[in-house]
């Protein structure tokens, strides 16, 4: 649309003088809302007519003002009396059948939005709380697991200790403490063995964790010769554990060496950790 042509077409002058049809009025009002130049021109025309109208102004008789204001006061107090149910705006809307549904729908829409907002915030509150509860539950489960593991470890140690104590109190068993050789002086291990039926238990040891691919091997020195009594590694075997029973011969000592995993037919002497004689 050419604004200049539109303005000079004369339609706007006819508009402000109320000379257009309803349809034409609607069209002009749409243009006014979209086009600032047209709107400002229409405004100047309205001001022109207003000024022209003011020139014809006639002061109404003096008593008229109080009459008018009395009426306004009456109308206003009527409106105020109905206020709990109807504000002046609503009263006017109620007089007019059409806007009423709009008002109801608006009220419903507002109510709906309020309900939605309340529900949303409640949902957020609940889900936050649920999330927190879940986290707390997870924390507790984790702590529980840790405690359980600790408890198991303690239980195992207790069981081992009980077994060791039981071994110590057995009158048929003889304890042999193996002491650390000079290179491993801090370590100790104990075997319990029965001289009659020649069963052997490795009672306890504080030997270090074995390197990968290695294992400890327990030996008995029988008639001056080493006899393998089996393999163990501290992290796999909970002591005490029964070892291989010794066949015939005089048991002189016990010793532990570090060997390749799978064990060795003869002890590697420079890898001996602890050793103890039977008498």
């Amino acid at each position, binding site marked *: 649309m050419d604004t200049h042509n539109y303005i000079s077409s004369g339609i706007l002058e006819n508009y402000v003088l109320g000379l257009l049809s309803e349809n034409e009025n609607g069209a002009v009002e749409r243009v006014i809302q979209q086009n600032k130049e047209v709107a400002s021109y229409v405004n100047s025309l309205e001001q022109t007519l207003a000024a022209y109208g003011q020139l014809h102004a006639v002061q109404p008789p003096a008593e008229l003002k109080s009459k008018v204001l009395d*009426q306004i006061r009456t109308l206003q107090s009527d409106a105020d009396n109905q206020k709990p149910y109807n504000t002046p705006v609503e009263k006017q809307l109620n007089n007019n059948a059409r806007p009423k549904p709009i008002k109801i729908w608006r009220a419903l829409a507002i109510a709906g939005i309020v309900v939605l907002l309340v529900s949303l915030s409640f949902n957020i509150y609940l889900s936050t709380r649920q999330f927190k509860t879940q986290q707390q539950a997870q924390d507790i489960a984790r702590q529980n697991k840790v405690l359980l593991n600790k408890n198991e470890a303690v239980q195992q140690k207790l069981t081992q200790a009980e077994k060791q104590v039981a071994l110590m109190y057995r009158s048929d068993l003889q304890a042999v403490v193996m002491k650390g050789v000079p290179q491993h002086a801090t370590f100790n291990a104990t075997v319990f063995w029965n001289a009659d039926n020649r069963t052997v238990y490795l009672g306890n040891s504080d030997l270090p964790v074995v390197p990968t691919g290695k294992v400890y091997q327990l030996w008995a020195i029988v008639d001056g010769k080493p006899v393998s009594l089996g393999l163990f590694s501290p992290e796999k075997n909970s002591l005490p554990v029964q070892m291989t029973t010794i066949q015939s011969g005089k048991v002189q000592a016990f010793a532990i060496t570090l060997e390749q995993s799978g064990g060795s037919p003869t002890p590697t002497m420079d890898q001996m950790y602890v050793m103890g004689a039977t008498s």
Partner: protein
Amino acid sequence: MINETLNNEKDLVLALKKGEEAAYSYLYDQYGAALYGHILKMTSNQELSKDLLQEVFIKVFQKINQYDEQKGLLYTWLIRVAHNTTLDKIKSSHFQNNLQTFSLDEKRSDSGNQGSVTTNIDHIGMEKVLTSLDNKYKQVIDLAYFHGLTQNEIAEQLGEPVGTIKTKVRKALIQLRKILNIV
């Protein structure tokens, strides 16, 4: 200046919508004479115009919520309310019956002013405008503005084609705008 007027008008409209009595008092002081003058020009009847002015204020109170600042000046809206209220009255059968005792010509309308107080400034201003404004243009404006005639009715009254009236309306307002020095 214009912005200040607009802001004041916004405040006034807000107060009117709230139903504040002081706002209606201010509205009466500010626009009462213009509305009364307009009604008087349409009816040429002082007693009727007094009743109509009261009716107009009641309608303003009842309809002020329908007024949309986006669509025009408050004054324009007020004049439209006054205009339509008066037109309804004029067209009602009761008024038509009474018409026999009054004539609706311009002289009557002017004589209606005699009993009322109009400021000198307005008279001077009007005289200046009326002498500067071409009579053919004044005629068209008055028929539309004060008497509420349609394009066809004006065309009929002046014995001119509708197209000519449309053009005349434009030229009339442009001249009036110039005389009144409105930007």
